[in-house]
């Protein structure tokens, strides 16, 4: 059993595991909102657009987690506002503006990173480096989780109304626009906390995979909410261990494990899986027979 306990002897592994569990859970819970509100594409764009902020912060302030956090936040805000301005003032639609700005922003980030101090490894910010979590990184992760999770729980009902049908929600007196801003804000915060662990390219896997998995297995929103969190947490930790044992990149392992869990659900889910669909084709002889008998 040595191989199982061995990783825990290293302090960097304990840190990584703790960070991983928390990020996995927070992102997993958030993922149910992203899947149901159909924000997947937007989340991807937002994640990429964090990069120039991070790069600028690195150039100006060097490697300090606080400034990286601030830089990422400002970059995300600028892109979000830019999208609204372009979409609002021209005939360009939101998705076009978002796609364009995110590609430009990401490119700007890459260019800026090449000017950054020599000891910085670009790939850490693209694909994450969870084994390098510092104390202040962990503090940022705590802090963000303790903002995001309580807010999501507190606003669960109005958010559910919003996600189901915004116009009915508004007719019931919900401030749809404010609630939307809050949701986007929480997504950005959560991304920033995942920056160190999985990077801007891979974070999307954590922000979609868990809820997409539960979506194939259940018709209950609370199951998606909490189940997403649990799958996110367990999947992330498992991915971390695999990366340790097999000596592979951690961010990629985490996302691959979440992806494998999703494909398992896609094939084997007793509710909406492929096998279930093939076994029980939509032709419902028994039901229709019962109906006919009822009529006679």
């Amino acid at each position, binding site marked *: 059993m040595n191989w199982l306990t061995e990783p825990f002897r290293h302090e960097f592994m304990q840190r990584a595991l703790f960070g991983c569990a928390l990020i996995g859970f927070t992102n997993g819970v958030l993922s149910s909102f992203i899947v*149901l509100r159909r924000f997947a594409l937007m989340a991807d764009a937002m994640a990429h657009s964090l990069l120039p902020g991070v790069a600028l912060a690195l150039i100006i302030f060097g490697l300090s987690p606080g400034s990286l956090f601030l830089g990422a936040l400002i970059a995300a805000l600028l892109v979000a506002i830019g999208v609204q301005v372009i979409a609002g003032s021209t005939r360009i639609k939101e998705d076009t503006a978002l796609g364009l700005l995110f590609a430009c922003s990401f490119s700007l980030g890459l260019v800026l990173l090449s000017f950054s101090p020599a000891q910085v490894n670009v790939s850490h910010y693209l694909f994450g480096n969870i084994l390098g979590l510092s104390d202040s990184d962990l503090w940022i992760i705590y802090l963000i989780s303790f903002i995001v999770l309580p807010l999501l729980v*507190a*606003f669960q*009902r109005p958010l*559910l*109304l919003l*996600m189901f049908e915004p116009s009915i929600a*508004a*007719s019931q007196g919900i401030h749809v626009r404010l609630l939307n801003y809050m949701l986007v804000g929480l997504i950005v915060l959560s991304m920033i906390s995942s920056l160190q662990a999985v990077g801007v390219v891979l974070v999307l896997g954590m922000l979609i995979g868990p809820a997409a998995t539960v979506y194939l297995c259940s018709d209950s929103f609370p*199951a998606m909410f909490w189940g997403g969190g649990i799958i996110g947490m367990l999947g992330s930790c498992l991915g971390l261990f695999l990366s340790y044992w097999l000596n592979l990149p951690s961010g990629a392992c985490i996302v691959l494990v979440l992806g494998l869990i999703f494909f398992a659900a896609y094939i084997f889910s007793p509710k909406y899986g492929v096998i279930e669909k093939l076994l029980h084709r939509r032709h419902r002889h028994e039901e229709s027979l019962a109906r006919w008998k009822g009529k006679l």
Partner: protein
Amino acid sequence: MSQVSSHRLEIKDLTVAYHRVPAVHHVNMELHCGHCVGLLGPNGAGKSSLFKALVGLVPKETGTVAFGGHGKEGADRDIAYLPQRSMIDWDFPITVRGLVEMGRYMRLGSWKRFGKDDAEAVDQALANMDLCDLADRQISALSGGQQQRAFLARALAQKAHVFLLDEPFTGLDKPAQDLLSQTIRKLASAGNLVIASHHDLKSVPDLFDQVIFLNGELIAFGPTGEIFTQQNISRTFQTPIFSGEHAGAVEPHKI
């Protein structure tokens, strides 16, 4: 008359505009609870805009809306809005009971527990709409008529008195249409006001006891027997819509 008639929806001088282009002009109406009202008019006549203004989804350019003597500014629980079925994501992970429970959410706020009163209101709404057997089904596993009834049950659980239905009969077959029509009559006779926008003019006399003819402005409103005349129909459907993109495009509707 009974207390039913004391509840009325008063619309005074209501104008709705999008980007300064008016969709509904200076509408004045007084509707009483206990009626099934058909809202008729060609595409672009402002039927949806009228509904949306009544529940505060779009701002009112001018005018006021009052129900039961209270002024209504924006969204209100007395008025329930049911959008077209095509607007809904039927794959949403929710059961019929969950959908009806949503009607209680705004009363509960964020922290209050879902109490006995709430559960009773939900059960009653389900029973009223004849959905008890289907309560645990996911909403996509319902027929079109059942889906409409599920949303009506949600509005009932909300304790709404005015039901605004956007094209509820679209896409329903004859038996489902008959059942839905019985259901909304039942709602009306229980003292509610039901207003439904509607396209199929042939079925109007069977479905509604009052009709509203709308084409940007109010053309006629009153009991079906008096108002639903060939003259009003041609006035509504053959006058050009005089604002917005369609201005000037005369397209006589076939009946």
